[in-house]
C-alpha cells in the first residue's frame, strides 16, 4: 500500500516533470524552428541577390545570417554549413577565390564533400584560387583589371582605356546606371582556366570558339596569347560589358537572341563606330540565308550561342540578331527597344513583347525583318572561308614561330591547298617567283582564302614587289577584317613602298588583335624612329620587352 502511495506520488512527480520537460522542449523547439526558417529564408534572398548581382545586399544577408546563427541558443551545424556555403558562393561571385576556398574548406570540414554540384563548385573554386594566386590588379575609375603578371601586362592599359570609353558611351546609350561598384575584368591565362571559371568544358569552349563571358557580375576573357592569331580583345571586352549592362537592367529576364543582338550591335560603339555594322563574312552568310530562306531560329539560339555546330552557324546567328536589333531600332527607335526590355523584365514572353511593341505577330515581324535584310543588299561571296579560332596548343610555343603550315586537313579539303603547300616549299627555298605562280593557281580555286592571299602577298613582298602584294592583301582585309596576318603583311608592304604612316597604322592595327606578336613591334620601333618619334619607338620597345617575358 505504502508502496502504492509512494508509487502514486512518484508517478505524479514523474508525470509533472515529464510534462514540464515536454513543455520546455516544445517551447525550445518552436524557437529553433523559427530560426531555421528565418535563416533559410534569408539565404534564399541572398542567393537571389547573388543571381541579380546585388552583392551588397547578399553580403548584408550573409552577415545577418551569421548574427542569427550566433544568437541561436545552441550551435546548429546544418545551418552553419548553409551559411559557410553561402559565403563561399558570395566570395566566388565577388571574385575572391581564396576567401571562397576558405569558406568552402570550412564547409567541407563540417560535412564531408556534399552533393555533386557542391563538389564541382568546390573544385572550380580551388582551381581558380590557384590560378589567381599572385595575380595583379590595375584599377581605373569604373573597372578593375585582373591579370597574371607577365606578358598579359600588355593588355592592361588598352583594356582599361577601352572599357572606360565603353562605359561612357554604353551607359548613356543603354540608359543603365552601373552603380554597383567597380566592374571586375579578368584575363584568363588559358581556355582551360576560363572554362573552370564559367563551368563549361574546355572542349565546348574551344569547339564553339568561346573566348569571353560575362557572368557573376564580371567580365572574363581569355588572353589573346592563347589564340594563334589573337583576337580583337578590346571590342570583346566592350561586347561583354554590354552584356553586363543588360544584365544589370533586366537580370536574367532577357532572351539570348536579344542579349547577343544588343551586345553585338553596340560592341564597337566605344570606337565611335555607328554600331550594327556587319563584316563581309556575316553579310555573305546572311545574304546566302536570305536566298535559301534558311535561318537559325531564336529557338535554336537558346540557351547559348556557344553550342553551334560550326563557326558559320555562329556567325549567321550573330548576323541575324544584330540585324534584328538594327531593324527594331530603325523601325521603332531606341526608346522602344528599352520598352521591349522593360516588358521582358516584367516576365512577358519575348514574342508576345515583340507583338505588343510592333503591333505585328512574330511571323509578320520576322517577315518584316527579312524584307529589311533584303533591302540591305548584302552580297554573297562565293567560296568564302569562315575562319575558326585557332587555339595555341602549347604554352611554350613562341609567338614568332607560328608558320601557317598547310595541314593534312587542308590538303583533304580542297585541291587548292596542294598548290599552297608546293608554294610554301618553293618559298622556303627562296624560289619566290615560282611560289607566286603556285599561290596564284591556288587562288583560282579558292579566291577568297585569306591564308592564301596572305601567302601570295608575303611572297611578293619578299620579291620586293610591294605594290603588287597590296592587291591580294587589300582583298583579304576587306573580307576578313579580323585576320591579323593581313595587317602585318600590309604593314610590311607599305613599309616597303616607303609609306611610313600607313605602315605604322597597319602594324598598330595588328597589335589590337594580337598584341603578343613581336613582329609588329620590331617594325614599329624602326618606323617610329624613321618618323621622328623616338618616344613612341621607346614605348614599342618597352611593350616588346613586356611580351617577351616568360
Amino acid at each position, binding site marked *: 500500500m505504502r508502496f502504492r502511495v509512494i508509487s502514486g506520488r512518484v508517478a505524479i512527480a514523474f508525470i509533472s516533470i515529464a510534462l514540464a520537460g515536454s513543455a520546455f522542449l516544445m517551447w525550445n523547439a518552436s524557437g529553433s524552428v523559427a530560426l531555421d526558417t528565418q535563416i533559410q529564408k534569408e539565404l534564399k534572398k541572398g542567393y537571389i541577390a547573388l543571381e541579380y548581382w546585388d552583392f551588397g545586399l547578399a553580403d548584408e544577408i550573409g552577415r545577418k545570417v551569421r548574427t542569427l546563427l550566433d544568437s541561436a541558443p545552441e550551435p546548429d551545424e546544418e545551418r552553419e554549413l548553409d551559411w559557410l556555403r553561402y559565403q563561399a558562393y558570395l566570395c566566388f561571385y565577388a571574385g575572391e577565390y581564396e576567401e571562397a576556398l576558405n569558406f568552402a574548406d570550412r564547409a567541407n570540414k563540417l560535412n564531408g564533400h556534399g552533393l555533386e554540384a557542391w563538389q564541382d563548385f568546390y573544385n572550380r573554386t580551388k582551381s581558380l584560387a590557384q590560378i589567381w594566386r599572385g595575380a595583379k590588379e590595375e584599377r581605373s575609375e569604373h573597372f578593375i583589371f585582373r591579370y597574371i603578371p607577365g606578358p598579359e601586362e600588355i593588355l592592361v592599359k588598352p583594356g582599361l582605356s577601352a572599357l572606360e570609353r565603353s562605359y561612357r558611351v554604353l551607359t548613356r546609350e543603354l540608359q543603365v546606371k552601373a552603380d554597383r561598384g567597380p566592374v571586375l575584368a579578368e584575363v584568363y591565362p588559358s581556355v582551360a582556366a576560363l572554362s573552370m571559371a564559367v563551368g563549361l568544358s574546355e572542349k565546348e569552349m574551344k569547339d564553339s570558339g568561346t573566348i569571353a563571358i560575362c557572368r557573376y557580375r564580371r567580365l572574363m576573357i581569355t588572353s589573346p596569347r592563347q589564340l594563334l592569331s589573337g583576337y580583337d580583345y578590346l571590342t570583346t571586352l566592350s561586347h561583354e560589358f554590354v552584356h553586363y549592362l543588360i544584365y544589370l537592367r533586366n537580370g536574367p529576364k532577357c532572351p539570348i537572341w536579344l542579349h547577343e543582338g544588343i551586345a553585338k550591335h553596340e560592341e564597337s560603339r566605344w570606337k565611335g563606330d555607328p554600331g550594327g555594322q556587319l563584316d563581309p563574312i556575316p553579310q555573305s552568310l546572311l545574304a546566302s540565308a536570305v536566298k535559301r530562306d534558311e535561318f537559325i531560329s531564336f529557338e535554336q539560339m537558346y540557351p547559348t550561342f556557344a553550342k553551334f555546330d560550326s563557326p558559320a552557324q555562329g556567325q549567321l546567328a550573330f548576323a541575324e540578331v544584330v540585324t534584328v536589333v538594327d531593324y527594331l531600332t530603325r523601325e521603332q527607335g531606341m526608346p522602344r527597344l528599352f520598352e521591349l526590355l522593360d516588358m521582358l523584365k516584367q516576365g512577358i514572353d519575348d514574342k508576345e513583347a515583340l507583338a505588343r511593341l510592333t503591333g505585328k505577330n512574330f511571323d509578320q515581324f520576322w517577315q518584316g525583318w527579312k524584307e529589311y535584310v533584303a533591302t540591305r543588299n548584302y552580297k554573297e561571296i562565293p567560296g568564302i572561308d569562315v575562319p575558326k579560332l585557332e587555339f595555341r596548343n602549347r604554352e611554350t610555343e613562341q609567338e614568332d614561330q607560328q608558320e601557317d603550315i598547310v595541314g*593534312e586537313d587542308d590538303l583533304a579539303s580542297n585541291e587548292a591547298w596542294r598548290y599552297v603547300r608546293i608554294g610554301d616549299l618553293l618559298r622556303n627555298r627562296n624560289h619566290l617567283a615560282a611560289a607566286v605562280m603556285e599561290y596564284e593557281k591556288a587562288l583560282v580555286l579558292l579566291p577568297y582564302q585569306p591564308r592564301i592571299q596572305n601567302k601570295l602577298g608575303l611572297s611578293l613582298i619578299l620579291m620586293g614587289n610591294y605594290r603588287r602584294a597590296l592587291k591580294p592583301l587589300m582583298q583579304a582585309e576587306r573580307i576578313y577584317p579580323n585576320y591579323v596576318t593581313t595587317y602585318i603583311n600590309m604593314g610590311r608592304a607599305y613599309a616597303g613602298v616607303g609609306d611610313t604612316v600607313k605602315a605604322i597604322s597597319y602594324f598598330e592595327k595588328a597589335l589590337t588583335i594580337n598584341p603578343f606578336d613581336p613582329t609588329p613591334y620590331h617594325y614599329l620601333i624602326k618606323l617610329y624612329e624613321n618618323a621622328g618619334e623616338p618616344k613612341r619607338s621607346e614605348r614599342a620597345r618597352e611593350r616588346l620587352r613586356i611580351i617577351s617575358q616568360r
Partner: protein
Amino acid sequence: MNPGLDKIHRKVSALRMREFWIRLFQGLSLAGAVWLCLWILGPLGLGILHGWSGLILRVLILFAAAGVIIMAITRAIYPRGTDDRLALRIEKVYPNLNNSLISSLQLTREREHPDPRHPFSAYLLERLLQNTASQMPAIDLSRVATLEGLKWRFLLFCLAVLSALVIHNLYPAYLGNGFQLLILSEFRLPEKSARERALLSAEPLTTGDFTLEYIYPAYSGLKPQEVQHTSGEISALAGTEVIIHTTCLERVASANLVVGGSARIPLRVDDGNKLSGKLVVMEPGEYLIEAEDSSRVQRREPESHPIRVEDDLYPEVVLKQPVSDLEVCADDFVQISWEAEDDFGIGGVSLVYQRGMEEERLEIFRSGERPDKRHEGDYDWDLTGAGVSPGDRVAFYLEVDDNDNISGPKKGRSATLYLDVFSAFKKHEEVIAKEEELFENMIEHLADHLDDERSRLDASPGYILEKAEAELIQRGRELLAHIQNILKMMESDIHTSELMKDSMENMGRVYKSLLEARSGLVRALVSSARPVKELVGLRREYIEDLERDIIFLDRMIKKQRMDLVLMEGKNLARAQEDLAELLERYKETHDPALLDELQRKMAELEAAFQELLSRMAMMRSEMGDEFFNIEAMDGPRWNDIFEQVARMRNALQDGDLDSAMAQAEDFLNSLGQMMAALNEQAGQYGEAISAEALRRMDEAIEKLAELEAGEQDMIERSEAIYHRQLEKTAQLESMLDRFIEDEAEKIEEIRRKLGNVQNEMRGLTPARKKPQTNTPDEIKQTTMEFYRKRNLFHHQIGGITRQLRERGRELEHRELEQVLEGMKKNQETMERIRDDMEVFMDRFQAEPDKKREQTSEQCQGALALGQEIIDDLEALRGTLKPAFAPGDTAEMKAMADEQEGIRDQTMDVWQEVADLEDDVPAIPMGVTGKLDQAALSMRDASGYLLLEEPGSALAPEREARLRLKQAREDLVRAQKQMSQMAQSGAGLPLALGGRRSGGGGTGTRGLAMKGFKLPEEGADKTPEEFRQNLLKAMREEAPEEYRHLNHDYYERLMR
C-alpha cells in the same frame, strides 16, 4: 716661308744628306774590312785557342761581325745633329758669316714662339735672313763635310779584300773552311781530357790487318762468321758480338779499344804485339786502338775504324684478303688472309681494329722458337666477339712485329681497311636521306620549270624555247637518274615499303616517257614550229606530275621519319629490357664485370635517348604541331625519363640495387607509354595522309566488285541463252543427218542415171535409110558430125557426173549452201544438154529408137531428181536456222544495253583510278589499262548480243570479267600497301623473321654468312622436283577460268 730662310734651310739640309751618305759608306767600308779580317784571322786564332777560349773567341768574332754592321747602319741613320749644330759647322769653316747663319735659324724659330722678355725687330730679322741667304751660294759643303774619314776606311776595306783574294788563291779551301769553322760548326764545349790531348800528340800505333769474328744475335738466326784481312771496319747487326784480332808493329804493354772516343775496352796482348778483344755492336760509331808501349809511351792509331750497324729492316705485312673495304653484318665472320715478311724473322701478327674511339688488338699469329722470315696465314674474324654493332664503321689493319729482342721488335702494318657493319636501320635512313635529296631536287626542278614558264609567258627577251627546253630536259634526266639510284638502293633496304618502291617506279616511268616525248618535240621544233602547243601541253603535264609527286614524297618522307623514330624507340625499349636483365643478374651475382657492363649500357642508353630526342625535335620542327600536340612529344616527360636514368645510375653507384631495379621498371613503363602515344600519333598521321585516298580506293574496289558481279551475271545469262540455242541445234542435227543421207542417195541416183544416158548414147547410130538427095560425101559428113556430137554429149554428161560427185562431198561436209548452189548450176547445164540432145537426135534420127527413148527417159529422170534435191535443200534452209526460245531475243537486246551500262560504269571507275593515280603514284599503272581492255571486251560482247550471238558474246564477257578482277586485285594490293604505310610502324616492319637477299636485319640480324654453302655443280639446272611438279601440272586440267577463255578464244579464232 721666307725665301731667304728657305735658302738657308736647303743648305743645311744638303749638308745633312751629305753627312748621311759619307757616314754610311764609312761604316760599310769599315764593316767590310773588319769582316774580311775576322774571316782571315779568326780561323787562325781558333787554331791556336782550344776549349773555352776558342769558344769565347768564336762568339766574340761573331759579335764583332754583327756589331760592326749594326754600328755602320745606325751611325748613318742616327741624326748627328740639329740644324743649329750643322749651322755652327758651316760657321766654323766660314767664319766670315759672323754667326749670321746660326742667328738666322734661332731668331726665326723665336719669331714663331716669341719670348716677350726678348723682343726683337721683325724687320731686322728679315734683313738678316736676306743677308745670310745671299751668302749661301758661296758655301762649299765639301769643305764642311770632307771625305777624309771615308778615304782611309775605304783603303782599309780594299786592303782586306786584296788579302782575302791572295789567301784564296794560295789556299782555296782556307776561306771555305774558315767560314765553316766560324759560322756553321756546332758550338760545343771541348771534351777532350788532358789524357786525350796527350794522346793526340802521342806517337802513332801501327796496326796490321784485322780479323773480325762476328757472332750474330740469336734472333737473326745467322751463323757466326769470321772475316780476315779487313781494315778493321765493322759492319754488323745491332747486338752482334765482334771479336777483333790484329797485330801491331810496336811492342806494347797494354792496349784498349777506344769506342766512340770515350769508352775503353781492354784488349788482350799476346806476344807483345798480338791484340784481341771483343765489342758488341749496338750503335754506329768508330773505334781505334790505343796502347802503351814498354817505355810507357802512349800510342794510338792515327785513324779510327768505322762501326756500321746493319739495318734490321722493318717487317712487312700485306692483307691479301680482303683487299678493299667491306660491308658486313654484325654476326659475320670476316676471312682475313695475310702474308708477312721480315729480313730475320716474324715475331707475331695482330689484328688491330678501332670501334668508336677504342682500339682493340687481337693476336692472330705468334711465331715459335724458329721464326720464319716469311709467313702466310688465314684468320676468320668473328665479328660477334668483336662487339661491333649495326651501323658501326670499324677501321682495321694487321700489325706485324719482328723477333728483334735486342733493340726491341720493330713493327710493320698493313693498309687500313674499313668494315661497314650493315644496319638495316641505317640503310633505311640512307634511303630516306636520298629520298629527301630527291625531294629537294624535285622542288628545284619544279622551280626551274615555273621560272621558265614565267619567262616564256612574259616573252622575256632572249628567250628561246628550244634552248630552255633542252636544259630542263637535261635536268629532268638527272632527276630520273636520281630516282633510278634510289630504286637501286631500295633493293637492299628491307624497311622500304612496297608502296614507296611502286611509287618511285611509277614516277620514273612517267617522267621518262614525258621527257622522251618532250625531247622528240624539241627535235621536231627545229624543222617546224607546229609542235609548240603540244610541247607546252606536255610541259604542263610534267609540272603537274612534279607537283603531285612532291606532295606525295613530302608526306611519305615525314611518315617514314616518324616510323624511324618508332623503330628507334622500340630498340631503345629492348636495350632497356637488357639493362633490367643485367641488373637482375648483377643483383644475384655481384659480379664486378657486370657492373662495368651496366654502366656502359646506361651510357649507351642515354646516348640513344639523346638521339631519339633530337630526331623527335627535328620531326616536330618539320611537321608542325598538327601531329605533335601529344603527350609523347612533351618535353617534361622526357625530362622525367632522363631523371629516371640519372636516378638509376646513382642508385647503381650507391649499390642500391632494389632502387635501381625500381627505376628501371618505371623507366620502361614511361618509355612504353610514350612510345604507345607516339605510335598512335604516327598511325593518325598515316591515316590522315592516306585516309582520303584509301576511301576513294575502297569505293573503286567496291565498284569494281559490283561490276565484276554484273559481268558475271551477263556471262551466266549469255550461257543460258547459248545453251538453249545449242539444244535446239542438237534436235536439228539428227534431222539433218537423215536429210543428208537421203539427198546423197538422190545424187547417186542422178549419177547412175546419167551413166545410163552415156551408155545408151554409145549405142545410138545415125539413121540407116539414106535420103535421096544426099551424096555419099554428104552422108559421110553427116555421119562424122553425128559421132562428133554424140561424143561431145558424152563428155558433157561426164562433166556433170563429176560435179555431182563434188556435190556429194559437199553434202557430206554439210556445206548445204554450196550444194544448193551447185545443184542449181548442174540442173541448168543438164537441162541445156537435154534440149541439145533432143535436137541432135531429131536431126540425125538416131537409132535404135528404143535406146533413143531410154536416153531421153534417163535424162529426164536425172533432171527430176536434181530438181527434187534443189527443192529439198531450199525447204531445209528455213528449218536449219535454230530458233531462240521465246523471250531470248528480247533478253539479248536488253543484255546488250546492260552491257553498255556496265561499260559506262567501268569507264567511270577508270576515270576515278586515273584521278587516284594523281594522288597516289603507287597505284599500279596497269589498272587503267586493264579497265580499258575490260571496256573494249564489253563493247564486243554488247555487239554480239545485238547480233543475237550469245555464244560469241561469251568470250569477251569472260575477258571483261577477268580484266575487272585483275584491276580490282591490283587496287586491293595497292590499298593494302597504303594501309600498312598508314599504320604506325607497320609499314616498316622490324625484321624479326627471315632476311632478304642482299639486305640484312636490324641489330644482330644481318646478312648471315655462317653456314653459307657455295652452290654445287649443276645446281643451276632445274631441280627434279620442280620438273615433276610441272609435268604434274600439265597433266592436270587448267583452271576453270582459263579453260573457258581458251575455249572461247579458239572458237573465235575458228570463226
